[in-house]
């Protein structure tokens, strides 16, 4: 699965590279959306199987029988998915700089925004994945439920903050954006923690 995600992110970035060879857009302005579109679509691959595979393989009940809380299952899955998606996003970032001749921005700030954005993406993705796993057509329901919420919260604020970083912003300029992403992270992680009991238990 990780290989497929790596190939997908490579393909998305390569597609953008070829498109911008023929269309005269400023790469500097589009760097941030290109990066986050790549994170978004390749990351979606990691979210679908989190709970769906447990349901398909019939292992969800095995987990529920164990003397652990549902929130432990949520946080275990959140942490594992976060590590995978963060690794994937870092890989995509390296490929992005190899493909596009961008002036190097403040890498510490950029990595900070990627980490914060990935936390929110993974937390909400985990929660929606748990909800959609029990629905019929779960593979369709996951993006249908996830995309609108994610797009207008973590992704939009992360794109904005990343744009500012590419534009030469310093930490002080980003404080509002960082606060907003942090707020979304906290809301999504807390929602997962509070709701997972009702979602997992039948």
């Amino acid at each position, binding site marked *: 699965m990780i290989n497929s995600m790596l190939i997908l992110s490579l393909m998305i970035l390569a597609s953008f590279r070829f498109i911008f060879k023929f269309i005269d857009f400023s790469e500097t302005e589009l760097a941030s959306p290109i990066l986050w579109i790549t994170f978004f679509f390749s990351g979606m691959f990691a979210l679908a199987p989190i709970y769906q595979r447990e349901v398909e*393989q*019939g*292992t969800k*009940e*095995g*987990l*529920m*029988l*164990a*003397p*652990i*809380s549902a929130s432990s299952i949520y946080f275990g899955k959140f942490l594992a998915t976060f590590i995978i998606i963060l690794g994937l996003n870092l890989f995509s970032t390296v490929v992005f700089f190899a493909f596009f001749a961008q002036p190097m921005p403040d890498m510490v700030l950029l990595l900070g925004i990627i980490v914060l954005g990935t936390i929110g993406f993974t937390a909400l993705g985990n929660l929606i994945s748990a909800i959609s796993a029990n629905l019929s057509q779960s593979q369709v329901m996951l993006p249908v439920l996830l995309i609108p919420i994610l797009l207008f919260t973590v992704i939009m604020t992360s794109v904005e903050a990343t744009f500012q970083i590419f534009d030469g912003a310093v930490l002080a300029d980003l404080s509002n954006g960082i606060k907003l992403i942090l707020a979304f992270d906290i809301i999504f992680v807390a929602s997962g923690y509070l709701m997972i009991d009702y979602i997992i*238990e*039948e």
Partner: protein
Amino acid sequence: MADVILKAKGIRRSFGKKNVLNGLDLDLHKGDIYVLFGSNGVGKTTLVKILATLIHSDKGEITHFGMNSDDDLRDIRRKIGFMSHEPYLYRDLTASENLDFFADLYSIPNKEKRIEEMLKMVELYHRSFDKVGSFSRGMKQRLALARTLLHSPDLVFLDEPYSGLDLNAQAMLNKVIKKMNQEGVTFFMITHDLEKGMEIATRRGILSKGKIIADDNTDTGEFLSKYKEILGGENQ
């Protein structure tokens, strides 16, 4: 009378308009091998899942070892095991990795030794490092038995445990149940297999119309004729 380790009173569960369990009462005593028979769709699996804390009843009270599942769910789950007709195993992991994962969930001390012991017990030690995806249905069931017993539960629920097992594996299962029962483990089993179930049972019942109706003190002949009578009535 031995200690009551599970007490269910007035259990009701419905799916839509269909009442599956209709005020069911059940006491399990320490050391029982209680076998519950019943025809298809009568609610046996629903009952065993409710007793194993996997799903909730709509009404009724259940205590396990004197504890209430609303307050002491984790303590209860630590003391029970459940083997379903679904093995609850990860196909991409090996037999040993599956048990290792569940050993961690139950915080089993000295887990390597325990895993080896369990794999030998279910005669799968030679397949320890093979992925479960390559196992036959019977082998998965045997490994599921090892998973169920890994944390040394005091009360074990078995849902159609003979399905998919060949004759040797069925005999092995009964041998394991008898051995563990002698060590004080209580079993609650639901099965279609009348012969195997009757062979192992120290108590037995019949589930019909949402209640356990047969008396487990009747003799074998009387029990069998009652079972046939109930099955005949339900199939009409």
